[in-house]
């Protein structure tokens, strides 16, 4: 059995088969980090590529993420033994005044699949809640979502509140009405139009952040 089969299981949305395949690799003594990086995370990177190319849409992306998470559930106890930590801590939520969370949940799931620790504050979140949670967890990044155009003012106010702090985490914004121009105007560090792009932007922002990533 090769790690390649784990990779393929994610891309085939085989959430039942992947459990068996990850376990078999572990039983064969394959390096845990190799299973994680070359099997599961590499597969999710491929999912991201296919999404960007317009081959995959949200259903495929989510089913791949589900399969990846099933594989991770087998791998996680072994990762804990290696002392491996996350690639960075991200606080995420839908801004105050907006009750929509599907887009935010998609992004949170993709960030988790990419190895980040994600603290999900849910929807309709006050600016202060983002700031406080980021401070308590020494977050590297705060990710804000909005679906309604009317929540854009709230997004702007939240960014302003985050930036007024002393130790300022990076910020990432997204959601149906959000554009790069809007993100620039409100002073967000990053913008992504989709969940897979959010992973790439988070990696870049966290790499440039003061606190080094662990993996």
């Amino acid at each position, binding site marked *: 059995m090769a790690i390649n089969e784990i990779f393929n299981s994610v891309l085939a949305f085989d959430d039942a088969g992947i459990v068996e395949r990850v376990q078999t690799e572990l039983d064969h003594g394959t390096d845990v980090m190799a299973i994680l990086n070359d099997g599961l995370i590499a597969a999710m990177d491929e999912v991201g590529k296919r999404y960007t190319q317009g081959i995959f*849409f949200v259903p495929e992306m*989510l089913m791949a993420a589900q399969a990846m998470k099933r594989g991770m559930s087998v791998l996680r106890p072994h990762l804990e033994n290696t002392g491996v930590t996350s690639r960075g801590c991200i606080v995420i939520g839908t801004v105050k005044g907006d009750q929509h969370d599907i887009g935010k949940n998609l992004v949170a799931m993709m960030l988790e699949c990419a190895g980040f620790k994600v603290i999900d504050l849910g929807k309709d979140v006050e600016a202060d809640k983002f700031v406080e949670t980021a401070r308590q967890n020494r977050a590297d990044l705060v990710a804000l979502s909005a679906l309604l155009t009317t929540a854009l003012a709230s997004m702007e106010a939240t960014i302003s509140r985050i930036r007024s702090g002393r130790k300022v985490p990076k910020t990432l914004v997204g*959601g*149906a009405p959000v554009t790069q121009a*809007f993100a620039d105007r409100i002073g967000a560090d990053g913008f992504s139009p989709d969940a897979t792009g959010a992973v790439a932007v988070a990696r870049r922002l966290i790499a440039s952040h003061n606190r080094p990533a662990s993996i």
Partner: protein
Amino acid sequence: MNSRERFRKTMQYGRPDRVPYFEEGIRKEVLRVWRKQGLSSEAEFGRMFSRDKREEIELELDPIPNPKTWPSSRSELDVLRKSLDPKQSNRWPGDWSKRARGWRGRDHVLMLRVHRGFFLSMGVRDWTRFMDVMRFIIKDPGLVRETMRIHGEFSAQMAERVLQEVEIDAAVFTEPIGGNDRPLISPRMYEDFVLTSHEPLMALLKRHRVETIIFRTFANSRLLIPSILKWGFNCLWACEVNVDAMDYRNLRREFGRALGLIGGIDLDVLRRDKEAIRREIEEKVPPLLAEGGYVPLADGRVREDVPFENYTYYRRLLEQVTAKS
């Protein structure tokens, strides 16, 4: 020319006396805020701008009773089928016949909302059901197809009762399917699951000679436009959009008169300043008016964060620009 004639003439690419001015769903709480910003009374607001009244018949298209759990297998679809019965009396207001009579001889625009879109039809009200539906699309597409087929037939039966009694000016399919960059499902999936299920509705609308069939969508549904045109839609009303992706000038260049347009003005500029509003209106509206088949309108509901001064400027400028065109 009354509002109804004006709308119909516009959507036929004819030459109305002016384009229709629809209102952007301004609620009382907005007017209360605007009272503090210089609006003297609600009545004054009604007199300030030219307006074309538009009414929408909203049918009760949810299952009755609402299911505790939505179908997760084809064997559970019978329950859904029984709860989507057009003959259920509580689907129709008690004064339905009186209302229907009242709409005859009207001079305002009357639209009929005939479908609530893919996700609501599949019972998506939260993340858990959303995940279920995503799974069905991949693992049990037959269930999705059949659920949508049941909704399609039911919606057609509901619409038929209306169309037997009332002549409408447009049919509206509401479809909140877009993300920032694209629809959540692919055009192939959308055709397979959704547009196919609209066949009974489309046949009905054709029989009743409903000329304007509107795809009212949210965010970025750009990729679906070729598909909806193929299946009989002829008008787009895009709300809460990513303005770069859904720029109506580009859509007009690409789809020409095959696609009538309602909306297209970025609501976000109304929150900003007069210069942003002026640029938005002067750059976008005249080229679209020149071609016809266009109703200029902000792409979302105007809420409290739009200053009254900005709204006034926007509406007056819109009237000036459309008068010139």
